């Protein structure tokens, strides 16, 4: 009996089985009762057979032998009935019903089901299979007759979880967000009366609070465990091992982590692709592993955990890692970059080329993977969901892919833009930066090439698409391309889709707005420029723009040779008092920022890479020693020591003082208001504060910080 052990390991899946088995058991009950009216109903008998069969099948998978045993007896009886070997009667239906009840008992107490005795029921059912139906005993079973049972059975309720059509949940979520909208309107209108009308304030607060909770709750109903995607990977690894003649072990963690249903559904393909790559190119042949002093068996790990508002999924292998030397050769060979350009790049930038189309790191093409298509699609798909993907690589030790995904697709950050008087929502995930083109600025100029507009930005050339034009909002025949007055300020959104970039020209840029994404109505599926619909704060419907579709509609052709815009060499000023900030934190919860334009590079290191000389910390960087400054050593923030964890070093553009800023976490880059709010008491090393996602950001003064560190370290 192995019933006890697997249960512990597969608790999530067992729970799913229990829910499903309960549904089947209920179905069996009602079908048996239906049969009591018409013993010859073939359709019902077939259904009964199928229900019991699927309980048996899944129970067998978990080694729930008693459930298998009893459902098997029931199944064979239904089989005999189906093949007209025996005929059901009241007596046998009663026996089946009581067997079914016992089955339900076992499913309800699945953990102890292996201790329950099924023999009386198996024997009884067995009796029917071999003997002709007994007649004339009906009198004895009056109390238990199906018609009496019918009433008591109707009282059965399945507790803990219920199945609901997804449409119902979607509807609930829509209504919840509508409620939020209504609340906002109510609060706005009553703002002036809050103090005037006695008792209004607490009521409004209560409504405010409850509405948020309802919306949250409605969102949660769509959450599903990652196990729904992960559970197909053991099989995948088994097949890959056989196909590739490798010995691979799969370790999974985080099955229970939940994500929105729509994200779960679109994660399958990207994850499968990464796992295939890991098995094919990452894990070495057993012989090779042995000669390298590794275990013959390779390991692929998939882990998932919550982090902030995101879910992080990590797929790592202990294989060969990506050989950046041969990757460089590949990049050179494919003509994507010149030798000089490559020499200037750090490892991370070089690894990033894995995500470009047409580049495979595999030395040979196999059935499984290696054609150089795929990783670009993986990245595009992940970014589409509002997520990010990055590689960590250690040669001969393996590589990992780290995916960061938002918890839900349904609400995304977007920016509201205007074209020809109509508002559209553009997902923030697609937006790289916003550029205002003023006449006379030589760094960013709009020019026409054969009637098509291009933007010269920081030495690069970007194709420009006019939103009004691509959507057909500008009348044809007016030669709109020429009519644009270049002497005005023109707003351009730089759009990134995977490795592609283009500029989208709009008439106006409104606020950021968190929007609830609704699917595109079926009759608009042919409109490639839209990915969905949303209802804005004012109740109006706005179309959500699909950047990829717009590029397609505008017939943009992307070569992979587009010169990457050197984002870091230019001041990222996007408007008055706004600047792109690089946000990070040390051990504590405090978030700090420096202008992105101040940072020349961000390096990833491990705690063990740090060398201590006196009080100072150093790392080897480009064959030189680089002094590290830990902000928490000098600033009034949460203090502590790093263990041997992954850390980041931000290398600022400060020629005078070569140094690296040692931080624990890089959060994001964001365009923030940097009209600094002076602090009450001036702290050395901090220039002021601003806000990001309602959190306070301390803006560091690097020069002061360095001076402080020099003082403390050297004196």
């Amino acid at each position: 009996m192995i019933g006890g052990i697997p249960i512990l390991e597969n608790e999530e899946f067992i729970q799913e089985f229990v829910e499903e088995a309960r549904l089947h058991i209920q179905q069996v009950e009602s079908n048996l009762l239906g049969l009591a009216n018409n013993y010859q109903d073939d359709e019902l008998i077939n259904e009964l057979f199928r229900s019991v069969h699927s309980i048996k099948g899944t129970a067998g998978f978990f080694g729930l032998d008693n459930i298998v045993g009893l459902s098997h007896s029931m199944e064979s009886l239904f089989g005999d009935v189906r093949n007209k070997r025996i005929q059901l009667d009241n007596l046998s239906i009663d026996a089946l019903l009581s067997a079914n009840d016992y089955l339900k008992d076992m499913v309800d107490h699945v953990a102890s089901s292996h201790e329950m005795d099924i023999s009386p029921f198996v024997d009884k059912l067995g009796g029917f299979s071999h003997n002709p139906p007994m007649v004339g005993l009906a009198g004895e079973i009056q109390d238990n007759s199906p018609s009496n049972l019918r009433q008591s059975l109707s009282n059965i309720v399945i507790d803990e979880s219920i199945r609901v059509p997804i449409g119902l949940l979607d509807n609930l979520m829509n209504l919840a967000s509508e409620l939020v909208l209504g609340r906002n309107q109510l609060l706005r209108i009553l703002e002036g009366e809050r103090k005037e009308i006695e008792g209004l304030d607490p009521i409004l607060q209560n409504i405010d609070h409850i509405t948020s909770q309802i919306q949250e709750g409605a969102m949660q109903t769509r959450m599903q465990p990652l196990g729904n995607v992960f559970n197909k990977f053991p099989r995948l690894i088994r097949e890959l091992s056989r196909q590739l003649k490798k010995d691979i072990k799969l370790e999974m963690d985080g099955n229970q982590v939940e994500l929105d249903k729509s994200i779960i559904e679109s994660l399958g393909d990207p994850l499968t692709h990464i796992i295939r790559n890991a098995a094919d190119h990452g894990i070495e042949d057993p012989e090779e592993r042995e000669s390298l002093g590794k275990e013959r068996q390779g390991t692929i790990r998939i882990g998932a955990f919550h982090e902030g508002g995101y879910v992080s999924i990590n797929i790592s292998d202990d294989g060969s890692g990506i050989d950046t030397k041969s990757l460089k050769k590949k990049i050179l060979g494919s003509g994507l970059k010149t030798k000089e350009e490559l020499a200037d790049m750090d490892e991370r930038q070089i690894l990033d080329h894995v995500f470009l189309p047409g580049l495979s790191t595999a030395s040979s093409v196999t059935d499984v993977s290696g054609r150089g298509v795929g990783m670009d699609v993986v990245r595009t798909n992940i970014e589409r969901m509002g997520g990010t993907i990055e590689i960590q690589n250690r040669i001969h030790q393996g590589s990992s892919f780290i995916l960061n995904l938002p918890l839900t697709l349904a609400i995304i950050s977007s920016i509201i833009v205007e074209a020809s008087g109509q508002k559209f929502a553009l997902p923030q995930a697609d937006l790289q930066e916003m550029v205002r083109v003023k006449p006379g600025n030589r760094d960013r100029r709009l020019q026409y090439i054969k009637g098509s507009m291009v933007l010269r930005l920081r030495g690069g050339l970007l194709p420009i698409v006019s939103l009004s034009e691509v959507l057909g909002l500008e009348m044809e025949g007016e030669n709109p391309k020429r009519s644009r007055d270049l002497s005005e300020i023109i707003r351009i959104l730089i759009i990134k889709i995977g490795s592609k970039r283009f500029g989208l020209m709009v008439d106006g840029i409104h606020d950021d707005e968190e929007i609830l994404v609704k699917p595109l109505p079926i009759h608009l599926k042919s409109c490639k420029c839209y990915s969905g619909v949303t209802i804005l704060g004012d109740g109006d419907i706005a179309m959500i723009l699909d950047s990829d579709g717009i590029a397609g509609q505008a017939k943009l052709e992307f070569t992979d040779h587009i010169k990457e815009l050197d984002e870091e060499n230019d001041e990222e000023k996007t408007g008055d008092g706004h600047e792109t900030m690089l946000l990070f934190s040390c051990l504590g919860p405090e978030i700090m920022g420096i202008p992105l334009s101040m940072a020349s590079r961000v390096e990833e290191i491990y705690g063990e890479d740090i060398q201590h000389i006196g009080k100072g910390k150093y790392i080897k960087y480009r064959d030189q020693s680089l002094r590290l400054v830990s902000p928490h050593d000098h600033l009034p923030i949460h203090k502590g020591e790093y263990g041997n964890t992954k850390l980041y070093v931000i290398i600022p553009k400060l020629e005078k003082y070569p140094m690296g800023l040692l931080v624990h976490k890089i959060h994001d880059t964001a365009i923030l208001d940097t009209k600094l709010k002076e602090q009450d008491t001036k702290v050395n090393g901090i220039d002021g504060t601003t806000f990001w996602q309602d959190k306070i950001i301390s803006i560091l003064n690097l020069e002061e910080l360095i001076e402080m560190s020099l003082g403390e370290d050297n004196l």
Partner: protein
Amino acid sequence: MTGKILTFHLNNELFGIDIGLVKEINRKIKYTPIPGGPEYIIGLFNMRGQVVTIFDFVYKLWDKKGHIPDSPTCIILKSQSMGNEHIGFLVDRAEDVLDVSPELCEPLPGNIDHIDQQYIREMVKFEDDLIMIVNPDKILSMEDHN
């Protein structure tokens, strides 16, 4: 057919629709046009948080753009064959609800050519008026999009 029909004016002609198919009538609606969308779609309308796709029946029936008043009236259909989607169409004016009995009904005369025969289910003869009963399923079906 037998039962109640909702009558409405469209492009100066009188039509009817089985009232069982109608969810509600919204007057003076505000909608969002879809630049680059199909010509037979007027736009999207926010019905209490549900997105309603508004069809141009004039375009479907006469193959030309209908006149859209400033504050149009929209008949919204119960979602049936279209899954969870809500569909509506603009009318010039919604009129009365009338009782129809089989003896009032007549198949479509063969000489009506400017209307695609399949879009009209049958004619209903009242004393003063002839009412065309529309077949929304056919009008909305995806197959005959040009």
